[in-house]
Every structure is written in C-alpha cells, then in structure tokens.
C-alpha cells in the first residue's frame, strides 16, 4: 500500500443502505459498548411524493477537521491535529469541562455521563483507528461497509474521485463535496443526493468557525497591557488633579486666614 500523506474518508449517501454494520464494526474494533458508539447512522426516512420517493441515511462520526474547533476550544489542549489527518483526543489531560462538545459544530465529542470521578469520566470520539491505518489497514467502519458507501484513502485522491463520480452522474448527486471547504476543510468528505442540511450537516463557511474567537484571544494580552496602562494613567491623573486642588484650596484658606 502506498503511503498516505493525508488520511481521509469519503462517504457517499446514495450508496448507504442503513445496515449499520459500520457501527458494529467500530464497537468491536474499539471495544466500546453499543450505546456509546463513536459512529452512528441516522436514517432520515422516506422523502418526497410517490412515485418520486427518496430515502436517505447519514453515517456520522468525527469529521477530523483541518482546523478542529474542539482543539481550539479545549482549555488544556487535550486535542491535537496530526499532520496526516486524524484529530486525536488525549484523556490524560482532559478536565471534563465539555467545552469541546459545545464547540464542535457537528456535535461529535461524547461524554461519560454515567461515570463518577473514581471511574473517570472522559470524552470519547472517533480516533481514525490509528492501530489500523498505521498498519496499512482501512479503518474498521470502512472495511466493513458492504456497499462501499464509506471509503478511505488519500484526501486529494478522494476529492478527485468524488468529482469524477458527480460528473458521471450529475442527475444523481448534488454538485458539492461537503467537507472539501466547510469549516476550513474536513477529512470526512460527503457526497449526497439530498440537501446536506437535511442530512443534519450544518451550513458552514469555508473560514473555520474558531477563527473569530482565536482572533479575540490573540488580542487579549496586548489589550490587557494597554488597558492596564490606561487605567494606571487615569488613576495617576485623577490623583494628581485632586492633590493639586486640595493644595490650592489649602493655600487659599491660608491666605484668607492671614488676611
């Protein structure tokens, strides 16, 4: 297998038959209970009027964003973005504030609500199966998928592939690869025949949504220093002014007294 520089998934909603084998595969591979699955398949039911019926389902796990908002938000830096794609969560430093869950526009990180502090309550999310992809295998969900609705490979190649598929069946696909640019790009690319927001995917700009708060954070220290200087200046100014005034009144009183 050729070495992959940027791991990515491609999900094709037109191929998904809602069989949920990927969920089972993920649970088995990562040894997690089914009710804490890191991947979930959301069937959105049948749409349209007979005879133009459509059904859709969306396979959904961590998008492995290029600019992860969870990583931007986490106060203790529990998330890292590997250069070759995966977004990795480190339970060793997590303080359990759940800000990452708020920050993620896709609602991916999940929390152990049923564990006390002795068991340790942590965040959980898709890891990109590092134990597999760095050993030349596909992630568990991809390998299991019977219809190739989930594919895995080099991000650039997957984009080319997706484009070709749209070009070959323009009637079947919406002419857009979700995740190519959304939120600054993700490593989970999606093709679909029904509008992406109906699949539950938010409309996101190409600019990562963490951009605004990161800019604000950059200004914090310069702002704090100048604000401190301004306040000290004001305090000193007011103090001098008051002192002067006091002295003046004192002097006036003195002259009046001597008169």
């Amino acid at each position: 297998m050729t070495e992959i520089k940027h791991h990515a998934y491609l999900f094709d909603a037109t191929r998904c038959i809602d069989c949920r084998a990927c969920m089972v595969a993920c649970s088995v591979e990562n040894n997690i209970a089914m009710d804490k699955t890191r991947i979930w398949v959301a069937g959105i039911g049948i749409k349209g009027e007979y005879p133009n019926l459509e059904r859709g389902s969306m396979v959904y796990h961590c998008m492995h964003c290029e600019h992860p908002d969870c990583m931007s938000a986490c106060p203790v830096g529990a998330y890292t973005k590997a250069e070759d794609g995966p977004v990795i969560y480190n339970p060793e430093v997590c303080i359990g504030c759940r800000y990452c869950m708020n920050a993620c526009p896709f609602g991916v990180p999940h929390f152990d609500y049923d564990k006390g502090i002795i068991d340790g309550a942590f965040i959980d999310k898709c890891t990109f199966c590092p134990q597999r992809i760095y050993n030349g295998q596909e992630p568990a969900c991809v390998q299991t998928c019977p219809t190739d609705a989930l594919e895995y490979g080099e991000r650039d190649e997957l984009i080319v592939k997706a484009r070709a598929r749209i070009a070959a069946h323009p009637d079947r696909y919406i002419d857009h690869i979700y995740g190519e640019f959304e939120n600054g790009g993700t490593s989970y690319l999606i093709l679909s025949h029904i509008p992406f927001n109906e699949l539950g995917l938010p409309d996101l700009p190409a600019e990562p949504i963490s951009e605004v708060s990161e800019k604000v954070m950059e200004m914090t220290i310069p702002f704090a220093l100048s604000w401190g200087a301004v306040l000290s200046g004001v305090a000193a100014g007011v103090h001098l002014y008051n002192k002067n005034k006091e002295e003046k009144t004192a002097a006036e009183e003195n002259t009046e007294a001597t008169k």
Partner: protein
Amino acid sequence: MKLNLTVQPRFRLNFRPLVWVLLALMGIAFVIAMIRFANGIGPVTNLSNAYPWGFWISFDLFTGVAIGSGAFVMAAIVYIFELKEFQPLLRPSVLTGFLGYIMVVVALLVDLGHPERIWYMMIHTNHTSVLLEIGICVMSYLTVLAIEFAPVIFEGLKWEKWAHLLHKFIMPFVILGVVLSTLHQSSLGSLLLIEPTKLFPLWWTPILPIEFFISAISIGMGMIILESSLSSLYFKRGLELHLLEKLGRAVPVALGIYLLVKFVEIFIAGDAHFLFTSGLMSLLFWTEILVGVIIPMALFSSKRIRQSANGILISAIILLVGMILNRFNVSWFAVQHADPITYLPTFMGNNIHYWPSLSEVLVSVGIFSAGILVFGMAAKYLPLFDNEHPQHAAGD
C-alpha cells in the same frame, strides 16, 4: 486615634431560623454533590450529549460572574476615580464579589468531569481557548479580591498595622483587578463565539465580548444597589441613599450605550429580520431588552424614583432580572444544538429538550445559601459596613 471596631449587635431580626434553613439547603447540595462524584453527572442532572452545558453553567458561571461585577465597578469608582464618598459601598461589594467567585469555582468543581484536575489549566495551556482565559482570570481575580478584602479581616482581628500597610500598596492590585475583570467579564461572551451555528443570530455577534463587558457595568451598579438595600433592611443599618442615588444616575448612560451597541450591531449584521419573526427567540430577545434595558433606563432616569429607597431597589431588581435573562439566553435558551433527529439516534437515550433536574437546581441553591450565610457572618463579625468610621477610609 482609637477606633471602636467591635460591631454592635444590630440584629433585630431573628437570624436563627434563617441560618438553619440555609444550613439545610447546603446539606442537601452536599449530598447531591457526593452522589454526583460517586456515580457521575448523568444520574443527578438532565445534561446530555446534546446539551453538555446547562443550569450550572448558566446560573453559577454566567450569572455568578455577572453579579460579581459590583466589586470591580466599585473598586474603579473608589480607587481609580477617587470618588471617596462611595467608600461605604466598597467593602460589601468586594465581599459579594469574592463570595460570588468562590461560588462559581465551587459550582464548577461539581460540574467538571475531573474536578481534581482543575489546576491542569495552569500547566497545560492552550492559548486559543477562551475557557482557559476565563479560568486563569477567575483564579487570579480571586486572589486579588482576597487581597482587597484582607484589610477588613485584619481590622476585625485588630491588626491595624497590617491593614494600614495593605492600604498603602493597594493600587496595583486594584488596577490588576479591574483589568482581570474586564478580561473575564468580556470573555464570558467570547465563550460563545465558537458557536455561530448554535447560538441564535440575534445574540451571536463577533462583538459579544464588548456587549458582555458593557452590560457587566450596569449589572455591577444594580448589584451594589441591591446588596446595600437588602443589607440595610436585614441588618437594620442606615442606607446610603444619597450615594445610591448618585450611582443610579450613571445607570441609564451605561444601559443606553449597551442598547445602542446591540441594535447597531444587529442592523449592520443584517439580523434585523429576526427581531419579530422568530417566535420564542424574538420573545426572549424583547423580554430581555425591555426588562433589562428599556424599563430600567426609564426608571433610573426619574429622580423621584432614584431618591426613594424602595423605588431604587425595585428598579435595580428589574434591571438584574432582565440582564440575568440575557445571560441565560446566551448560554442556554438561545443555544440550539444540532438537529437531534438526524444527529442522535433515539436508542442513545439522550433527552433532547434540556430542562434542569431538581437536583441540579438544588446544588446551585445550596451553594448560593452558603454564600448568603458567609455574607451574614461577615456582616456580623467584621467591620463590613464602615460608614460609622469614615475616617478610616482606604487609600488615605
């Protein structure tokens, strides 16, 4: 000069039953907190993967920090602008701020998944995280408030020298305190900057931090009025109505600026069409604006109302209710999480519509009771209301 620092027992009101009620509430909160530590957050709260933050964050963090703003507003007035006449209001507001922030921290310890790791914020720092900034600021500000309040304790212990020494070097701490307050009051708004897809557009704006800071100033003034009035009622002491009246004059100005900023932003951002068309969200927005801004602006503009003890107290309460609604809106009511039908399969057992459980509320109530109890004890045993000793004013 010899000062009589022993506080005469001023309690006409029988304090005992109240103390027992407060202690009982604290006990309940303690038990719930223990269950939470043993069994997890799930069993005692309605928080879920869809709603990771709920009542504790809206009430204890957002509201708690907001109502603690009286401390920095008062410190700025008395020390930086040297309006020494306001001195009598300083100590109670610093204490309220101090207790308020301790309550914030205690509540967060219950809410965090790993409370024992809270100090990790100091060693594993992620500089793009707004929450980190808030954490660091709150921790440092607590220290500053402790220093600002220490003279009162020293006086209570009759360590006059220490109290005096601290007074002398108080200025750098005051300025640090105001800077830290500015930072974290505004950062509380910045927390939501990363949720443009979740927070309703009437509230989400890149200038959320600025709006939060401006509103914190009026909340601070409201809190000062509230706590002076209430403590004068309960502890049967004189009310500095002339000072509150003066303070009240500034409220419409602060609120006016806030209103202007808020609406200009909404129109520039092109969100104006949401003002009347978004059902519950429009209703929440207008309630918040009317109760928190427009009505108090009108009330505080009237000299007659400002000069009446009841009038100014009620105006302050209205202002606070509206502003607290704002904090709840921003952190909870107007936050719409991802569409649950497609996001969370029902078998995952998440409740999609979040409403706090009784135990969540009881924990907050218990922590709040502890704050009230400590305030009451401080009022009894420490020279908290030093209007009888104006000559001992700080900064002399």
